[in-house]
């Protein structure tokens, strides 16, 4: 794969420190973004690319300060346009490993259009979306992932909007690697990032992130020790969907409806549980699992929902040009100037 460096071994052994730009990080104290930055820096040595071949592109928002802090090339872009800017970077430089740091407002509100089209095209971009379910930089208005009825500065009587389910949106738009992780689960986040780095095509990682100032505790039932086991189901390829303090609960499919089963009731066993297949090109089960977060009482799936491969836009595009060059030869100036639609004026 001449057009992709992801498989090329790096010559230098990096450490997390190599990926830190060393400048002052300006997020609020306690912000989940610090953890995401740390996990990205810790897993960057596994990304399979030299740091000078990595570009971090962002839009506008708290998350989008990310490129300043990474010791890689970067782009602090335009609000909502990170996916489009990253598309430009990638297509003009197919050998670069292009990452996007964005937020729920940046990517799903103003940037929704660019996001779905990047997913549709399956461009080799790695999108990390920090989801804190709020607009932090503008100081606390609701976002497209804010839960219905949420009271914020711009919705004092509760929102009447339905939120986006980012996993469903990415899957429905054609993203080929779709995952969810959490700022407060550092090991898991590192693992997901490293896996994403190796995927070719659109990679979408939703990172549930706490905003301690404007939406504190939005995900505490998922991230805190006391409640995590009952509220999170970790997705692992070829493994059954089991969760609970003693791994005593499972998810079974009843037709197309997921139901929670008690594995200790004597009637059900782990063999009844839905087995996760992240490589399935049929997204039906992915949607089923993504919907858990919309059903009260169901655990939030965390992990890789989807990881399958299909041709990438950038790969096909480069291939098309190479093919044309082989078929038609490398063009010359004269051949271009005196080709079709030119004539001599007499």
């Amino acid at each position: 794969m001449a057009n992709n460096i992801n498989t090329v071994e790096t010559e230098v052994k990096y450490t997390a420190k190599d990926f830190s730009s060393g400048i002052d990080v300006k997020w609020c104290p306690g912000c989940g973004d610090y953890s995401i930055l740390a996990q990205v820096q810790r897993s960057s040595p596994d990304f399979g690319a030299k740091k000078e071949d990595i570009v971090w592109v962002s839009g506008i928002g708290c998350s989008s300060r990310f490129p300043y802090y990474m010791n890689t090339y970067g782009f602090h872009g335009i609000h909502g346009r990170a996916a489009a800017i990253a598309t430009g970077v990638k297509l003009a430089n197919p050998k670069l490993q292009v990452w996007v740091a964005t937020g729920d407002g940046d990517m799903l509100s103003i940037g929704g259009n660019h996001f779905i089209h990047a997913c549709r095209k399956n461009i080799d971009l790695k999108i990390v979306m920090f989801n804190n379910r709020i607009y932090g930089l503008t100081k606390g208005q609701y976002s497209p992932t804010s839960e219905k009825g949420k009271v914020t500065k711009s919705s004092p009587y509760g929102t009447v909007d339905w939120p986006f389910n980012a996993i469903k949106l990415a899957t429905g738009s054609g993203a080929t690697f779709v995952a969810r992780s959490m700022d407060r689960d550092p090991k898991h986040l590192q693992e997901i990032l490293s896996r994403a780095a190796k995927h070719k095509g659109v990679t979408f990682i939703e990172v549930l992130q706490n905003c301690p100032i404007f939406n504190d505790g939005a995900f505490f039932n998922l991230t805190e020790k006391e409640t995590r086991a009952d509220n999170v189901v970790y997705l692992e390829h070829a493994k059954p969907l089991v969760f609970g303090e003693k791994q005593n609960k499972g998810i079974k499919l009843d037709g197309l409806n997921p139901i929670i089963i008690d594995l200790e009731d004597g009637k059900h066993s782990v063999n009844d549980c839905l087995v996760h297949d992240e490589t399935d090109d049929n997204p039906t089960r992915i949607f089923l699992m993504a919907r858990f977060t919309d059903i009260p009482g169901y655990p939030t799936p965390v992990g890789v929902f989807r990881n399958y491969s299909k041709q990438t836009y950038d790969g096909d595009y480069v291939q098309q040009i190479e093919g044309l060059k082989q078929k038609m030869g490398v063009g010359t100036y004269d051949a271009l100037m005196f080709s079709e639609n030119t004539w001599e004026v007499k």
Partner: protein
Amino acid sequence: MKKELRLMKGNEALAEAAILYGCDAYFGYPITPQSEILEYLSNEAAKRTGMVILQAESEIASINMVYGAAGTGKRVMTSSSSPGMSLMQEGISYIACGEIPCVLVNVQRGGPGLGTIQPGQADYFQSVKGGGHGDYKLVTYAPSTVQEMVDFVFDGFDLAFKYRTPVMILTDGALGQMMEKVLLPEQRPRKTEYEPWGSTGKTPDRERNIIYTLSLQPDVMEKWNERLQKKYRSIEANEIRFEAIDCEDADYVLVAYGLVARICQKAAHIARDHGIKVGVFRPITLYPFPYEQLNKVADNVKAFMTVEMNAGQMLEDVKLAVNGKKSVEFYGRMGGMIPSPEDIFAKLEEKLNHPVSKLVGELA
């Protein structure tokens, strides 16, 4: 409800004015330094007048929601700050062409690009020269006090409906954030009557309306343009507003708008304390620009200095107005920097090289 005196932030006063005018709808997207407009309206409007407030998914959505709602003949407003206003330019061109009245607010910050969240005036060209495509004009009010943030919402809606044209209130982050005493007008009722041109469905007693901005036949499109231009000539003849402060006896006149016009008044006082007769000419409508009025001032003064928070934008209109009669100097700060009265006075002395400067000595 009677008139009320309150201490308010510029952004909040402007939002309050929209409610008091009986505005029907506001569509906006958060951006610093104007998010208080969206927040204030979200808190206050629905429970008081039932005004619709919607946080859109982007500024592009906001302006198109304005196009839709205002196209039904309702009183509709949006607001943003510089980068967001750039996103709205396409919609504004269509709204102007479709002759839809509405009020737009730009609480400017320093640019270009993401720039800064500090105040700026660098969107002058965008507002008065047509930020979108095609030959259209945007009536542009430049408030210089929190009181005017209120007044121009009222005047802006009146004028928008009088001429069926979009109106811009071009202010900045400092005026948006500063608190001042403000006299609030009485609450007006929401609008109930239909506009004959509004796209609100066909009833037996009226023809249907389709709002559109397209004509593939150039002769038809030219006629359309001529109609727009005729309207703009009428606005230029009737709606110019300006303020000439101490210009009668002035040797030098500072030309500035909005926040900077206030700073210039202080600079003029400093100058007069030093024995230099300085006045301030403040265009209140940036379009239509007071060309003739400023040209008349040129007869009695020695020179002008335009002061702006940009690299020299209104300067071009000032030069057109003065038309070579007198020299026009310029002092500008950019990127969110605000000139101080002392800066302006020092720059005035330096630029004009007034002989009095030898008497008052070198300025720090």
